[in-house]
């Protein structure tokens, strides 16, 4: 039944929370899970662990960066109404290419990185071509891609590990932004960057809010706006401070932050982003509205390929070698993160911020359960149930 609140009327905090239940719910779930592990790990009798220690927070980002990076691209693919099962193999393949180029052939790192990204784009284009212009179901095309690129990875590496990488390549994953102020501990550069980032977040929020008001859009209640910004700023500063007292800001976090902002902006504020959602919501209607749907589908796969190859290099750099098994099963983690983040299986909906939170939930759970010493068997069961619960929560809310 139709909502009865008038457009111009002010809404209470409760109503607003209800209206944004999904986003706020996921954020609260993330906070709850973090607190849960924090408390429970403090109380381990033999040796209490600080879940929020600088080292562990750094680890969390290093371990999960690749999932988040690929989830950004996977969201677009899923919003467009498709799926990409090949990304785990693409991770392995581009890692292998990077290893062969740098380790075996001795090419310089600054040349290898763009080459790998280009290869990722080509892989995405090759798959996207069949999906977009030949209308072969993406499930089939990328399932084939999954086998093909895993095979090519094995062939390229001769079934062996290739490594180690030069230092510059490793810094892609394990490098940190050096302290320009020379203090080192705490790393002042890291603190400044985080503080500036937090300030920008607040400023952008404020600007969007006042502009909305100008156009007569009912904004969220002031108290809500302030509270949310305090929580977000505090969380950012806390993480920033922890990172600063350890080894500084990891390069990966910077890349991750920039990509997240870029994709959030792309999906929410650009015409092309909007068209991807329309395409996923109703392809025929989008087409008859003058949208080149085929090309959009093609481009989402190209984009996915580029992000997968970036993730592939980060994974290789982190392991400091390319292995034939690198990336096995990654596609499932990424897809799970996107659905936990609130994307719809049928396409047309899902938000970047939700996907990042979804990926973090998965990451925090992996990390926390490993420290707790929970076996890999139970871990899988629990992660599976969390995915199911998140989607049931969605469906329940939608039907209500």
């Amino acid at each position, binding site marked *: 039944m*139709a909502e009865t609140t008038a457009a111009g009327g002010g809404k209470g905090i409760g109503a607003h929370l209800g209206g944004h239940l999904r986003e706020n719910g996921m954020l609260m779930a993330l906070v709850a899970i973090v607190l849960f592990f924090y408390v429970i790990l403090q109380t381990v009798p033999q040796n209490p662990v600080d879940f929020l220690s600088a080292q562990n927070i750094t680890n969390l980002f290093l371990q999960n960066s690749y999932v988040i990076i690929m989830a950004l691209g996977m969201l677009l693919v899923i919003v467009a109404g498709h799926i990409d099962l090949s990304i785990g193999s693409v991770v392995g393949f581009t890692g292998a290419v990077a290893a062969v180029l740098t380790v075996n052939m001795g090419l310089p790192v600054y040349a290898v990185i763009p080459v790998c990204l280009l290869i990722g784009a080509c892989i995405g284009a090759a798959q996207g071509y069949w999906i977009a212009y030949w209308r072969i179901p993406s499930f089939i095309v990328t399932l084939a891609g999954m086998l093909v690129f895993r095979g090519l990875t094995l062939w390229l590496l001769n079934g062996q590990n290739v490594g180690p990488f030069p230092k510059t390549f490793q810094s892609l994953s394990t490098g940190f932004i050096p302290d320009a102020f020379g203090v080192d501990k705490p790393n002042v550069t890291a603190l400044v960057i985080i503080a500036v980032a937090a300030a920008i977040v607040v400023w952008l929020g404020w600007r969007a809010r006042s502009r909305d008001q100008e156009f007569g859009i009912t904004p969220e209640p002031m108290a809500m706006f302030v509270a949310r910004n305090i929580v977000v700023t505090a969380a950012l500063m806390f993480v920033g401070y922890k990172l600063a007292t350890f080894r500084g800001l990891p390069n990966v976090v910077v890349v991750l932050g920039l990509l997240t902002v870029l994709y959030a902006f792309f999906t929410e504020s650009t015409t092309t982003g909007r068209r991807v959602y329309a395409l996923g919501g109703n392809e025929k209607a989008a087409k008859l509205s003058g949208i080149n749907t085929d090309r959009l589908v093609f481009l989402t796969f190209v984009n996915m390929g580029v992000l997968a190859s970036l993730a592939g290099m980060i994974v290789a750099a982190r392991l400091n070698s390319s292995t034939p098994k690198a990336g096995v099963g990654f596609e499932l983690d990424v897809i799970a993160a996107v659905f936990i983040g609130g994307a719809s299986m049928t396409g047309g909906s899902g938000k970047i911020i939700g996907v990042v939170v979804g990926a973090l939930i998965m990451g925090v759970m992996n990390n926390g359960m490993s420290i707790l010493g929970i076996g890999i068997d139970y871990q899988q069961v629990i992660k599976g149930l969390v995915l199911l619960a998140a989607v049931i929560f969605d469906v329940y809310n939608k039907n209500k």
Partner: protein
Amino acid sequence: MATLLEMRGITKVFPGVKALDHVNLTVEQGEIHAICGENGAGKSTLMKVLSGVYPHGSYEGEIIYDGAPLHCRGIRDSEAKGIIIIHQELALVPLLSIAENLFLGNEVAKRGVINWPECFQKTESLLKKVGLSEAPTTQVGKLGVGKQQLIEIAKALAKDVRLLILDEPTAALQENDSQKLLDLLLELKRQGITSILISHKLNEISRVADRITIIRDGTSVSTLTTDAISEERIIRDMVGRDMAHRYPDRTPKLGEVLMEVEGWNVWHPEQTGRQMIKDVSINVRKGEIVGIAGLMGTGRTELAMSLFGHSYGRNISGRVKMGGKAVDTSTVTRAIAAGLAYVTEDRKQLGLVLEEPIVKNITLANLAGVATRSVISRGREQQVAEEYRRAMSIRTPSVFQKVVNLSGGNQQKVVLSKWLFTDPQVLILDEPTRGIDVGAKFEIYTIMNDLVAQGRGVVMISSEMPELLGMCDRIYVMNEGRIMGELTKAEASQERIMALILKNETTKVA
């Protein structure tokens, strides 16, 4: 005649909305009882109460069926009593055969093993009853909508139906299929089957129904016997106001020719050698509403879709001129740029992104209009949406409402808004009032008049001849992909249009 069904004081409340308020309905044994009302008046809700979709206890009031109180916990209970509802959206499995569909969930089987010979035999006799001669093994998806509708009725007959409820059965049917269906209803009536017919089409109702109950705003307004009613009375009761004219007045002010199509030929996209549009030439003037009449499947939609960005067909040839200059309409983007807009026949499948809010649907075809260097301004977007909401009087609590929650008429206004925002010179409207209630139809007509008053041209494709006659300055009659003739407003009449359509049939026989 005995009373078969009596619904007394039915009240059904949804959170925040009273959908039904003390509705009464009495259906006699063996009659065809029509239910009329605007969209959203509560007709479907009432039928859902009756068929147990809303189980006993979730509503107030009583239902007496066949002399005893009826307490349904679900559809199964009501079906067991012989109450069978056929929804507007057909519930057939397109990839299964007719026989499989007829007995779906009700298979001719012993301990789970289907007795195919018996099943086929029963299917054949049921098909004969509804006047079909298809083989029982025919895939349902290969049949037309009209025949599928008949299969639905055969399916109801397979379940020993006593009270058949049809929710707008002819909405998607063309004239002669509708006639067949109505004839079948009369035939079933002779066999003692009682029917409830929900319909917007007043001529159908007066043809088959014995009595009519009119529902407005969740209450039953009146029950009339068909001999005592006029269409005007029904309309008045439905909308709660007198509607002296069903079509708003307009003094045509025709200007120069806006769009000209010359020698347009289109071939079927899959079947080679099948020409769908044959040498069609039409034109539209500034300030003119041009109708395209013809039966369904004669190529009207194909003509419109092929003109609009070659969205249908292959090997398209012919010229399109806008304002005297040849334009390229070979992609939708180019067609829009040339000043063309096409409002599709099927707004849910082709016109709207249902899960998106009104705002995003309105700007979809002209995102550049609310963006600076590809960055969308949410504020400007909302302003635009609010303007159209006011101009079109789209009834919604907010422009952020998802369009799936709107009624058919309001959805159509959103589609029209979307196209107006591209500022087209010529709009092609394909069945613009299909599935829309009488009140909203009038609003759509008024909008059309506004459009031509602004100096645009409108091409209106419609299967409802009165609508074409009431609205158009000029009517092209189409049959089998060809323009059979052209009638001015003064010349046009239903008989003349039919005569032009039939001209083709006779020449073909000869």
